[in-house]
């Protein structure tokens, strides 16, 4: 079978997301679709899946043009999609998630869950996708959740399988396992479209590669014909330095010391379980780990947003365990939060208001309880200039900026203070290469100026490139303290999965 996209064009207000894109996917073949964040990959796939309607262009399956009004039509046409953010209902069982939308029923719409569970079991044993059909989805690990997503697609007898950034949540070992699964699917005659911004992976798994940049297909190639460097240049449009440029660190005194802390999450489950670590001035310490191993709660605890159940945190020797966010950041700690739209910014506030979001209560931005908005505007204007935030005005709300510029507003606010420690969670998630390079550069400059830096990221490549010292977090504890220049990604991956190399 063959799937063709011809001349697909999609415009959003002010943005041309897809510009006459042509692509072909065939049975028994893996097509790698490479592009950086914001290149238009997800938009393209949403059009293919019927979630968006293209402004122009055709979708042709086996020579026949198809029109999708919604995902139902795309599913009908044999297209299945594993989304970057899983589309699973957390409180449902695995089986309920799999059958949703195509429920096997008796009379009067009563579901036959026994039959459904049997079918789920059949698919899972056929393709080596082991799951417990009765498990509640939110209780199973992300790696298994991904299997549920694949079973969902296969349950609908899809012939064209689209994977959108499927490896983002997996350890290197799980990635290997996952590659084995999709090779198996390819050999079983399915057509696979593998969307990613990771060069290594696209070279490893694809039979053919298409590169998307600024909404256009800028080239076709195969893994045999190309190299990482060439692909990177194609993807970004200019030569890219794949490594973070930095000198050897010269760590000084201990700034942050964490001693045997326990932390609970929002659902009252203990997720940080007796963790200890140290960060020194002038070094970048990275924490690698699979999402959901307590990193979020650790960062929230360190920045005062979540209380520690027990244990202690010292900042320059001072016990700050019971300090709130203000106590922490007034002691010279900058925090780049994981979810910038939910935490780091008030999206409806102007850039000026966001710039003073955590310093508004001190001069020069206020005298007593009266705000000085002129001083705030002056500071905002200066920082927007200094940190290269692209905006027509400092009086527009933060939600009218692009993701990269929103992150720059946060970086501007946090780095412009007199800080001794920077705690950054997923600092470059979802950003384009230009913004990533800029933020990495800022972090390295801060380190060289003697600031202690703690980076928490699920992007293993990023923490390995940026850190001077690499910690691996698994099940709420630090399980390894490594030198990133001396260790292989495979070994780090084993630690991330709770094993020892």
């Amino acid at each position: 079978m063959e799937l063709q996209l011809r001349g697909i064009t999609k415009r959003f207000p002010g943005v041309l997301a897809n510009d006459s894109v042509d692509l072909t996917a065939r049975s028994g073949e893996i097509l790698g679709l490479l592009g950086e964040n914001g290149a238009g990959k997800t938009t393209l796939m949403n059009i293919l899946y019927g979630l968006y309607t293209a402004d122009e262009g055709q979708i042709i399956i086996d020579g026949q043009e198809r029109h999708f009004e919604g995902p139902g039509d795309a599913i009908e046409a044999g297209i299945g999609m594993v989304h970057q953010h899983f589309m699973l209902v957390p409180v449902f069982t695995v089986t309920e998630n799999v059958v949703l939308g195509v429920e096997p029923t008796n009379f009067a719409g009563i579901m036959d869950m026994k039959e459904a569970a049997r079918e789920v079991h059949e698919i899972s044993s056929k393709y080596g996708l082991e799951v417990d059909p009765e498990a509640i989805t939110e209780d199973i690990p992300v790696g298994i959740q991904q299997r549920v997503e694949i079973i969902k697609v296969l349950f609908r007898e899809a012939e064209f399988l689209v994977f959108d950034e499927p490896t983002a949540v997996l350890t290197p070992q799980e990635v290997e396992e996952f590659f084995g699964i999709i090779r198996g699917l390819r050999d079983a005659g399915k057509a696979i479209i593998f969307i990613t911004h990771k060069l290594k992976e696209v070279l490893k798994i694809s039979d053919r590669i298409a590169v998307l940049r600024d909404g256009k297909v800028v080239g076709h190639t195969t893994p045999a014909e190309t190299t990482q460097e060439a692909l990177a240049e194609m993807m970004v449009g200019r030569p890219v330095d794949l490594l973070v440029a930095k000198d050897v660190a010269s760590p000084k005194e201990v700034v942050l010391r964490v001693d045997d802390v326990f932390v609970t999450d929002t659902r009252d489950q203990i997720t940080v379980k007796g963790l200890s670590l140290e960060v020194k001035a002038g070094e970048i310490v990275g924490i690698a780990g699979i999402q959901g191993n307590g990193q979020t709660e650790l960062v929230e605890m360190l920045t005062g947003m979540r209380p520690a159940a027990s244990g202690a945190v010292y900042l320059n020797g001072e016990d700050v365990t019971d300090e709130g966010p203000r106590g922490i950041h007034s002691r010279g700690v900058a925090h780049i939060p994981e979810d910038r739209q939910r935490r780091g910014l008030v999206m409806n506030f102007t850039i000026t208001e966001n710039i003073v979001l955590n310093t508004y209560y001190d001069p020069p931005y206020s005298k007593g309880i009266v705000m000085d908005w002129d001083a705030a505007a002056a500071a905002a204007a200066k920082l927007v200039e200094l940190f290269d935030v692209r905006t027509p005005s400092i009086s527009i709300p933060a939600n009218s900026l692009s993701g990269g510029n929103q992150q720059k507003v946060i970086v501007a606010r946090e780095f412009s203070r007199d800080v001794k420690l920077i705690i950054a969670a997923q600092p470059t998630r979802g950003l384009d290469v230009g913004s990533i390079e800029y933020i990495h550069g800022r972090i390295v400059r801060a380190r060289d100026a003697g600031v202690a830096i703690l980076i928490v990221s699920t992007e293993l490549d990023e923490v390995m490139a940026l850190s001077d010292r690499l910690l691996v977090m698994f099940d709420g504890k630090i399980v390894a303290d490594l030198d990133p220049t001396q260790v292989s990604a495979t070994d780090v991956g084993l630690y991330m999965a709770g094993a020892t190399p």
Partner: protein
Amino acid sequence: MTAVSKTQEHVFTPAELKRARYLGITYIVLALFVLWFFGVGSIGEGDATLKLVKPTDRFKEFPNLVLPAAIFSFVVAAMFASLGAIQLTRGFKNMGNVVLAIVLLFFVFSFLTWAAAGKSFSFVGMMQETVKRSIPIALGAMSGVLSERVAVINIAIEGQLLGGAFVAVVVGSAVHPWMGVLAAILTGVVLGWVLAVMAIRYRVDQIIVGVVINLFVLGLTSFITQRILNDNPQFNGSEVFRAIEIPLLSDIPFFGTVLFKQNIFVYVTFALVAVLTYGLFHTKWGLRSRAVGEHPKAADTLGVSVYGYRYLNTLMGGAVAGFGGAYFIQGSVGQFDENMTNGRGFIGLAAMIFGRWHPVGALSAALVFGFAEALSGKLSILQTPIPSEFLGMAPYIVTIVVVAGLVGKARPPAADGQPYIKD
């Protein structure tokens, strides 16, 4: 801060421990309260006689429940004290809410024996009244369950009840009582449709739409009542449906009278709870509805129509609330008064939260509220020294305590109240 033990099998989190401690202290305070007010307060007052059958019942010779008021309360106080002690020392693990329910039940009984010490009163009558009064609340709560399971918050239940009652009386008296019920259901559907269009299509804040619908219905029904109904009594008097005695079942002493000598609204409500429970958890419709309420994007990507299910369930919820409105007329008094629903819709909403968005839970909560209403009616007859205003407040105070999480934190559908935006 409580240290967290690493070895224990079931690890209690700090929040759980805190709540367990609060509960333990509450039980002990209740023990002292019962001991002093109900126990010491009824010394020498004699026995309380709770009648379990009515003179018209088939087995009218069935014995009454006679409790020595003071002694009973002393026993209850002792029981509370020991339960509190156990709660504080080792806790009840998974049985915590069961114990809480038992404590509340005995508290109420202790209160009743105190109030009725040396007198006798018809407990069966009060329970029959409880069921009746819980019906509009339960129907309001079911309406809420239907729409909130698909993430549409329905504050307009009050307006749907009131609008339903108004139309039920007009159509019921001008045409036929059954047509009145039907028209009330349609009125609920129309108001549900307004809510749905505003919330789903125009993405107006759902709470605001609900408040506005309530204001609108209150204004319009009051306006028309003054302008038309007051001068035209032929539009304001519908036949009230009689109680239907279910053969055999209605002969069971006490329970037969309470549950099986009621009018059609009661039976329909109980049936509705059963159907909804089964439907939500065992049918295609239920699975899809819950998916739409928990994770609309996931449902959408699987070809489930998010808007379709939101419309469908909000309209069904409107129908249920409209039917609840008809209860005030054909099920109860037959006449319309301005603002006659008097906050029942909001109590229904609280019952839905209390019942954790589950039909059976919501019905149980509605029965608790119905009991509180029946009790305050009964107590004025018993002439207790408690001012009637305080009894009037009781259900509202209970509601606040409930939503503040005494019974543990409830988890609403994840997308509740959020409009779904298709790009």
